[in-house]
């Protein structure tokens, strides 16, 4: 099981979010746009990361859109679907 704090740490490292701390990221922050500010390249990076590190492969885009809508949603999805 991954906690939201562990996930935030992983995202900070994955996206090289210099100067951003775990405390600054809220559980309901969006990953893209006004939240963490990630972009389309990051979306592919995150998809690959989830496959490599958690064994998660999305079956369709609408599913990933819902999961990527917040840190909390992503954390819950990882804990429900992790295969590693």
């Amino acid at each position: 099981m991954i906690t939201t704090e562990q996930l935030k740490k992983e995202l900070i490292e994955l996206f090289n979010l210099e100067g951003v701390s775990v405390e600054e990221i809220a559980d309901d922050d969006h990953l893209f746009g006004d939240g963490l500010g990630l972009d389309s390249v990051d979306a592919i990076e995150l998809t690959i990361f989830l496959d490599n590190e958690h064994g998660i492969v999305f079956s369709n885009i609408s599913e990933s859109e819902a999961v990527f809508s917040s840190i909390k949603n992503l954390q819950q999805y990882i804990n429900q679907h992790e295969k590693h």
Partner: protein
Amino acid sequence: MKMNFKVIKTAVVSAESKCETLDEKRIVPKMMLRRRLTRAARIMVYLADACEFSEGSVVYGSAYGEMQATADIVGAIDAQEPISPTAFQNSVYNTAPSYFSLLHKNKSEILTISSGDETSRNVLQTGALQAVTNNAAVLMVCSEAINIANIEEVNECTKYLESGVALTVVPTDEEANTTVTLQEHEGYAPSLWAMLDVVAACEEKEGAIIALQL
């Protein structure tokens, strides 16, 4: 054919492992852009800043290109893992000057050259042509960032795993007053030597004017 150019600014940076004083947070205040910068891009924007250049034509050179991104891609292929899109987009030779253009919203032309040990010599020639064509200042930058895992197994050419040299020139009708002497620059990759020759000749000389081959 040779023409004369006034050397406006010069800058050099080097480190045996990693350049620690590239001042990225000031030069690239937006973290979401800064986080993507490769080592070569950080060196390039630092040198451009040191030359006080943000708008105009740029000629960039690197013999080895984006070594870390390339190594990341090769590593992923070897491990039969998907290739990182960030590594893919950062692996091209013009990554560094492209980030420079994004940073400064510079819409002028950017040329990238890679020709082994002759890289900075060709950057000088191409930069001179650009300066004459546009009758404007041109930024020329050469950098190498080869500080990747196990590089010592193959590196025989440089002590400095990160290094770069830059100069801005503008065409002039004035007579050349500075002679550029070819020399070896110990510790630096030979791909940087021709531009280091110019910097060495112009060091501490206000208003240096050199002749460059077109």
